[in-house]
């Protein structure tokens, strides 16, 4: 083999080794690039997931806050409605109270009413001796019906006519007026008590108004508010 052949062979070998090395180098570079891509993708996905979770949490918080706000508002408005209903009902009662004053002016009717109130109280108390208290203005009317009331009670209850003592020292307060707007008042009627004062039957017009009002309240509310009555 001469020099030319030898050098040619050496060159071939060099070329071969170089090619093998380049191929391996290429493989290493490809592996590295692909691994980098995979890793990067994983990191990005992980971070994205974290951010997504963060924002989901925030969204949930906002949702909760909204719900709380809503229910607070709802409650507040419900209270307002209830308050308004209550106010309306109270004003009605007040109006009714004012109307009561007119009852008193009809002397004939009021007289009859007083008698019946007294009888009713007597029937309730079932005491042989009672104490009666009325307004100063009504004293005359009361005394005029006292006897017939006693007799009516005795008949109905089948007992002896009771002994009614009218209190002329302490009277029920007078009718409400502008001067005593916030003071105690009485629109009419009587208060009966047993002699020892332990059992009391309040049959004033105001008390009766209260009773009626309380009894009829459901019906009143239904009339006023229809389906909105709570």
């Amino acid at each position, binding site marked *: 083999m001469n020099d030319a052949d030898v050098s040619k062979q050496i060159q071939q070998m060099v070329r071969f080794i170089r090619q093998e090395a380049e*191929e391996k180098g290429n493989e290493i570079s490809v592996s590295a690039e692909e691994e980098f891509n995979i890793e990067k993708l994983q990191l990005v996905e992980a971070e994205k997931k974290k951010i997504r979770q963060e924002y989901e949490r925030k969204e949930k918080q906002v949702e909760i806050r909204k719900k709380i706000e809503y229910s607070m508002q709802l409650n507040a408005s419900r209270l307002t409605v209830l308050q308004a209903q209550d106010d309306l009902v109270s004003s009605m009662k007040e109006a009714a109270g004012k109307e009561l004053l007119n009852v008193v002016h009809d002397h004939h009717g009021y007289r009859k009413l007083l008698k019946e109130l007294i009888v009713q109280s007597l029937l309730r108390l079932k005491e042989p001796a009672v104490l009666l208290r009325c307004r100063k203005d009504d004293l005359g009317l009361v005394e005029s019906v006292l006897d017939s009331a006693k007799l009516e009670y005795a008949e109905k209850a089948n007992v002896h006519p009771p002994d009614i003592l009218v209190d002329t020292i302490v009277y029920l307060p007078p009718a409400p007026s502008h001067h005593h707007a916030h003071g105690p008042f009485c629109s009419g009627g009587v208060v009966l008590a047993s002699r020892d004062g332990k059992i009391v039957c309040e049959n004033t017009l105001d008390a009766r108004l209260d009773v009626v009002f309380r009894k009829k309240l459901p019906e009143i509310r239904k009339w006023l508010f229809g389906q909105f009555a709570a």
Partner: protein
Amino acid sequence: MDRAELTTEQVLKRDIPWETYMTTKLITGTCLQLLRRYDNRSESYRAQLLDDDGPAYIRVFVSILRDITKEETVEYVLALIDEMLTANPKRARLFHDKSLANEDTYEPFLRLLWRGNWFIREKSCKILSHIISARPKAREGIISNGEASYSKSKLTTIDDVLKGLVEWLCAQLKAPSHPTSGVPTAISCLSTLLREPLVRSSFVQADGVKLLVPLISPASTQQSIQLLYETCLCVWLLSYYEPAVEYLGTTRTLPRLVEVVKGSTKEKVVRVIALTLKNLLTKGTFGAQMVDLGLPQIVQSLKAQAWSDEDLLDTLNQLEVGLKDNIKRLSSFDKYKQEVLLGHLDWSPMHKDPVFWRDNITNFEENDFQIICVLIMILDTSGD
């Protein structure tokens, strides 16, 4: 002269009448000047010229290829470029110089892929892949947009280039224009191009994966070993791309790979196939198939051979561990029980693994040997 066996050296021995071209206005005066300066000089001289004003020479070459159709001239210029790139592959970057932004540097090569003799086509393919690989990478994922931003609509975009090239490569694999070097050229080109995600997707879409499969067979001669290596390189690159992996699952690639790796003595072939198998192990049913094909034993025997590459040893170890995990997972007793009770007995790995039987023998006793009874029943009634 037999055109098919033309070599670069032979082509460069020609004397091209550049002056005539100038008189017929096919090339400009500057072109002629540059050509005369470059032509027939030594490599070191040329290196200097290219360092000084590389893009200008590129422009000359490209315009000649575009405007002149005479075969000998085209071959000559292609040979010049080929020689230039072989001496220093980094020169491919010159094609992407900003001064050439208005020139369509891809177009002539793309066109020449489809016409002319084999020399022209082969060289165009080689040069084109060099140019493509050397293109400047903008921020990841915006590569194609970067190209489009400074190319006007009449210039070929990189997407079109890649699609065109992949098309040509697939055509070559199906019906090579040249009996012996058609396929090797195509595979060689693919093994560099398939590094890019764009190329991978075009290739899979163009149904090219199945064209690679027949090339995976044990090789003995020098050339066929190189071809086998590059084909396996392509498969490895594709195994990083999900759609390709699905595709590979439907073809009979895996048995072929195992067959090759069993018998091969060439380190680089074994290396690439081992890397491919490592990638495929965790995906789909490949793991089970590998165990079926007896890969664990093959890996054992491969490890016993003295390879000089420690990376290869690493990969083989990883494969071994991965396969063991797979077997364990597939051999769970519950799965076996389920198969028996459903009556769907299949020859999956656990049926044949003696370790499985040894470990799980006591489990058969549960429920009054229920499993055994069912098995007996199946054996009685089934004719399979």
